């Protein structure tokens, strides 16, 4: 029989099944926690760090990712404090500076309140969220792609650089990739870097309640589970 626990999320008491992650619990109840590397039904690796929340233990708030945190009875979570919003904005800023050419990343940056980017733009094609790697491994048991290299050298590649014979050409890796949706205005050219402002109409609405899910379109690009 399914067991339930009660957690305190931003003051609201949520009754959630034991074993779920705090992020899933929040999304289920319509609390908006921006996320990128999380894919429903896949294991969470805590790579993008966008879904950070404050976990209050003995009066001390500890910043941790909600996707890797399992619910426990009586757990106290603060999902959208000023501090969390600021940290999220900084992380989203790092991401969007890396890949301003992705619609999904632009949307995430908009959702996290990034207005200006303080770093020079790069036109990276991959933000190493690892969605493709995990879906290939966990859903199809193919392991046709994986991470290669460390640090700055890290990239997604197939074994020995050749198409793996285990690849079923199912294209799921493409479907979950946040970079494959055509951006509104195409890749940025050097000297023409700007942050897309087309989502501003949405932002007006969202800014009034950053912690609630409005079923906005901003999650489309990375298949937000509420979308």
């Amino acid at each position: 029989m399914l067991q339930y626990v009660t957690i305190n999320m931003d003051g609201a008491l949520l009754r959630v099944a034991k074993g779920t992650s705090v992020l899933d619990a929040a999304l289920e109840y319509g609390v908006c926690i921006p996320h990128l590397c999380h894919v429903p039904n896949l294991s969470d690796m805590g790579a993008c760090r966008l879904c950070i929340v404050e976990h209050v233990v003995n009066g001390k708030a500890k910043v941790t990712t909600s996707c890797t945190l399992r619910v426990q009875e009586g757990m106290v979570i603060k999902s959208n404090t000023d501090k969390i919003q600021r940290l999220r904005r900084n992380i989203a800023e790092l991401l969007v500076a890396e890949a301003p050419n992705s619609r999904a990343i632009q949307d995430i940056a908009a959702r996290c309140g990034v207005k200006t980017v303080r770093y020079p733009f790069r036109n990276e094609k991959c933000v190493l969220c690892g969605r493709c790697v995990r879906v290939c491994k966990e859903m199809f048991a193919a392991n046709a792609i994986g991470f290669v290299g460390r640090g700055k050298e890290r990239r997604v590649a197939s074994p020995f650089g050749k198409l793996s014979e285990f690849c079923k050409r199912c294209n799921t890796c493409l479907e979950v990739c946040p970079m494959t949706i055509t951006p509104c205005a195409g890749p940025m050219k050097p000297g023409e870097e700007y942050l897309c402002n087309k989502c501003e109409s949405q932002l007006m609405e969202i800014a009034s309640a950053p912690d609630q899910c409005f079923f906005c379109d901003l999650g489309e690009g990375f298949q937000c589970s509420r979308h």
Partner: protein
Amino acid sequence: MTKFANAAALEGFRRELLRQRDSIKGTVTICGGTGCQTSQAKKVIDALRAELARRGLTKEIHLRPTGCHGFCEQGPLMVVEPGKVFYCHITPDDAAEIVEKTVIKGEVIQRLLYTDPVSGKKIHSEDDIPFYRAQDRQLLSQNRQVNPLDINDYIAIGGYASLAKTLAKMKPKSVIDEVAASGLRGRGGGGFPTGRKWLECHDAPGEEKYVICNADEGDPGAYMDRCVLEGNPHLVLEGMMIGAFAVGASQGYVYVRNEYPLAVEHVRAAVDQARELGLLGEKILGSRFSFDVEIARGGGAFVCGESTALMASLEGTVGEPRAKDVHTVVDGLWHKPTVLNNVETWANVPSIMGKGAAWFKAKGSKGSKGTKILALTGHIKNTGLVEVAMGTPLRTVLYDIGGGPSRSKDIKAVQTGGPSGGCLPASKFDLPVDFDALYDAGSMVGSGGMVVMDQGTCMVDVAKYFLDFLQDESCGKCVPCRLGIDRMLEIVTAISEGRGKPEHLPLLEDLAETMSLTALCGLGKTAANPVLSTLRYFRDEYEAHIKQGQCPAGVCQALIEYNIDESKCTACGACLRACPYHAIQGKKKEPHHIVAAQCQKCGICHAECKFDAIQVA
């Protein structure tokens, strides 16, 4: 050899060993640590062995190659007993003379003695050398008494007695209480109370538990763990056995990096010897406790020193950290409760059990007990391994033990704790070597690396160096660490090249906070420390780079210029010949000058000039 059936058999064996050794007239101890091996220690040992054999003294004189003695600057080192005569900078050619004069006749060879740089006097005995005198060598002093490849040496000085006592007389819970009472804190960097860690693992549900020794030391300039493991592997093993007994583990791992070949070799030999004597295996010393140790070699990734990455590597997967919302004492190696401690932490355990928690607690400061091994490197006279009681002021370590700056320039800062630590300025040298005090000052004790930097060091350059190191060593899994370090390096590089902007400094601080709060593992959380601490104490240097476009220390190449002071130039031509870019022109008896367009600012001429005529501006 037969296995020891019980504690009494071990004690009997030790007595027998001591009785056999009574006939030995003298001992020649030579440091065979990695530091001394680079300065020909192996050849010295071979020469001495040959010389002793030639004279037929092998039975009377005990030749003992040991692990590191600590004074690496002076290597190869040797101590001749009786008399504790201390020789340094020995060459293989000295072997015959040493045996002839010192070993046989008991005379002292003045030439090989250590000269005190302050008084200029020759010092006979190791105990009188200032470098050793100001230390409190609890762990390192054993290195000198033990041949790491011979378990008998370790047993002879009372080794494994603590294990025997623990197994015979104590319950696991009381072992944990004793360690907790001693106030021992993790020596790997975190400073987490060891007793608490053990208790949490002991209380964690599960039959199968593990203990791991973390010997994946990777901080630039740190080699404490290496020397302990190389010099006294049985001490670490004994600590692990006691820990395993306390938490209820029956399997242990030593995760040692493959770049430490000597440590791997020694710890392997130690495990084999301990197995032979029944100190590892089933029913150790007649108790119900069974334990074995496996050696795992790391590939040299810095991040594999992080507990979860190390465990991932041990499991055979990619060495990447994972979220630690559930601690490794509950969910560790193969999802079993696991205690992971650093080499030095394990090495402290036998003496705590042997001499008692009160003995250990008597040393140290309020929050940090016992002694700590530090690796002194950089612009300091006496580089080497230093062991001091916790709470000793940095000044004592740097000046009394370290002997002060190695060059004519004053010490400007000391970098403690490796890439996770920070730089402390000279004004903070009265701070004690204490986990909490250094943490509050924006640095940390860390694993004990201390890189000393004098006035000729640019702090922006130092920050850049550590960021560069961390960028290479970050696993790249999480965004704040991978991109945060990358962007920080980009900004600091811009500053060092004169492209810095005033808004860069608050941006660095903002980014540093984000990284420290949101990164996945300890590496990312502390990666900003070198930048933060230099910004905190040397902000004026950053500002000089940004606002005046100057590098006060004359290090950052883009911001400096080399000029020849014509009044000092003697036209000797040394710089002219040395310049690889032919950027220096001049004729005989005429002051030379540097052609700015051709100058690559390598600084070779500056180092070459004997008349101080080449100036950096």
